[in-house]
């Protein structure tokens, strides 16, 4: 794989919430097909301008189009070479964890490990009953479903009984994770301390939305996650894996940026018709201005949150037309991210881990030795008997006589 999958202190990318919003300056609302194809173009351009990650949300209601992120991300992975594709977020509450295990292990295989998963609880109450769940159980669902997902990716044969899902007896989730390494998981949160606790407990990444609210909310969450990460024995607080959202709009001249973005801000689904753009940019990480202003604001993030591993920007929402979004990417790639990479690398302690990649995680598990290559055993009518339904590579001597090696 390319240099991208080697050691890289920080990953920069963009995330989309997949909203289809009327452009307030033209009155035009794109069709679903236009917006879906435009998002593919945007994501591919993110790679072209040197960004590392593209992430897409999951929603099941208009005006959003992204109900099947794994399908979209598979198409994107096929059309890119370096880009890490991710979700932002996958609904751990209403998706069957078995389907998540299967779909994202598949995405891991077809993308050669260029993917990871971000989990969240969803943005609208009705999504729970649409998928047969109860919103009042949101947190217990997030906890139990992830416990099962975690197990399905690490154990070839799973027996399971929980509160929310049909019990499993001798179930094998296929395909097994690429190289025997489960996809990297980020736990996304806006305000819930239990989710920070969950990320810390498993030693997974924690992604703070860092879009809607003042930094003080996220500071408390990230500080909690770092402390609990150390509490559960995964490393020092500084070694916890932190990702941040953010949102920006740029132009060479800061007044032009404000003028160009204001109609989109004023009518945006999330904050439109509320606070002024000036108030909102002061209170939240939204930054509208020159590339240097973006750099200054985001280089300061580590003063608030500590050294971190991933920065994703929201840039394609609120009805912004494709042409403007691509221009924003050009500025990000040419003027903002290279400087931020440099500034955030300065004085970064060697003990702070690099951003997680499949290649690095394979190396941590197997060194330079062979990775796990799961092969289903021959003539297995069931996976209830024996050690594992798989023979790993290399097949041990005598495997044909039932002496198969135990799975990962």
């Amino acid at each position, binding site marked *: 794989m390319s240099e991208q999958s080697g050691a890289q202190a920080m990953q920069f990318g963009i995330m989309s919430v997949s909203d289809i919003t009327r452009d307030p300056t033209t009155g035009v609302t794109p069709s679903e097909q236009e917006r879906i194809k435009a998002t593919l173009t945007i994501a591919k351009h993110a790679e072209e301008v040197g960004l590392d990650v593209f992430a897409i949300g999951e929603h099941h209601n208009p005006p959003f189009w992204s109900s099947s992120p794994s399908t979209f991300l598979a198409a994107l992975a096929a059309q890119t070479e370096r880009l890490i594709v991710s979700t932002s977020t996958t609904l751990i509450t209403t998706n069957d964890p078995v389907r998540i295990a299967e779909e994202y292990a598949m995405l891991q295989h077809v993308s050669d490990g260029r993917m990871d998963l971000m989990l969240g609880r969803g943005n609208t109450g009705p999504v729970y009953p649409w998928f047969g769940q109860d919103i009042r159980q949101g947190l217990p669902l997030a906890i139990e479903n992830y416990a099962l997902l975690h197990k399905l990716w690490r154990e070839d044969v799973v027996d399971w009984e929980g509160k929310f899902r049909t019990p499993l007896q001798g179930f094998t989730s296929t395909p097994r994770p690429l190289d025997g390494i489960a996809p990297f998981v980020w736990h996304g949160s806006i305000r819930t*301390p*239990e989710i920070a606790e969950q990320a810390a*407990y498993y030693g997974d990444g924690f992604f703070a939305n860092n879009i809607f609210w003042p930094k003080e909310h996220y500071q408390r969450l990230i*500080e909690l996650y770092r402390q*609990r990460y150390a509490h*559960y024995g995964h490393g020092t607080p500084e070694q916890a894996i932190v990702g941040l959202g953010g949102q920006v709009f740029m132009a060479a001249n800061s007044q032009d940026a404000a003028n160009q973005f204001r109609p989109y801000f004023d009518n945006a689904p999330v904050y439109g018709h509320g606070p002024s753009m000036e108030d909102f940019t002061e209170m939240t990480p939204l930054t509208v201005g020159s590339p240097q202003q973006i750099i200054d604001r985001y280089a300061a993030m580590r003063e608030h949150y500590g050294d971190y591993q991933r920065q994703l920007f929201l840039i394609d929402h609120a009805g912004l037309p494709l042409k403007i979004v691509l221009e924003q990417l050009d500025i990000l790639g040419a003027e903002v991210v290279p400087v931020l990479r440099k500034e955030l690398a300065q004085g970064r302690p060697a003990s702070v881990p690099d951003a997680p990649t499949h290649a690095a995680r394979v190396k941590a598990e197997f060194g330079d030795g062979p990775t796990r290559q799961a092969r289903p055993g021959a003539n297995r009518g069931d996976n209830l008997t024996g050690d594992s339904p798989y023979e790993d590579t290399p097949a041990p001597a005598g495997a044909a006589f039932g002496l198969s090696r135990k799975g990962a």
Partner: protein
Amino acid sequence: MTLRRIAVVSAGLSNPSSTRMLADRLAAETVKALRLAQGPDGEGIEASVDVIELRDYAHDITNNLLTGFAPPALETAINTVVSADALIAVTPIFSTSYSGLFKSFIDVLDPDALTGKPVLIGANAGTARHSLAIDYAIRPLFAYLHADAVSTGVFAASSDWGGAGDDVAPLAKRVEKGAKELAQSIARRDAATAADPYDPATYLGEGRSFGHLLGGLAGE
């Protein structure tokens, strides 16, 4: 001497405001009653009062409803209310109920924030014909929030501010009655302590780990 903090929320829209006048009387009378009450140490209770005029936060409250977070000034006001030992809530009566601004402020509070908090309800309107609005419209709101509203609500009509408002139970008497009940409610309780939602002991329980949230799944 024990110290307590009383938050006063006044939803009057004009300035000067008769809603605020009622709020100030209720607050002053409650402070007086607390001095005469017996705290845990057998001495009287000294109380400080923070008054929040919702009119000053009207734009912030709307912004909070739309964005999900409170601008800094409103956040300070919210913290003042939710961390206080008691709340005196006074609203004008509009169309048989609390004012929209008053309800919007309640709506941006965490739904659990007023649980168990002693509350004295006050209301203000042009005529005494609205006086039951406290009991059929405002009290149910605080009941829903599991706040502990004292049984006397103090309603003031315009005429109450003149000498002949109510000869049988003049406003001063009713203010005194409500304030005394609130003071007793405060005196019965320990001083309010704020639980930090980001303290693992708060969301997991003392001495517990994430394994307990997982229940039997982690064998804990």
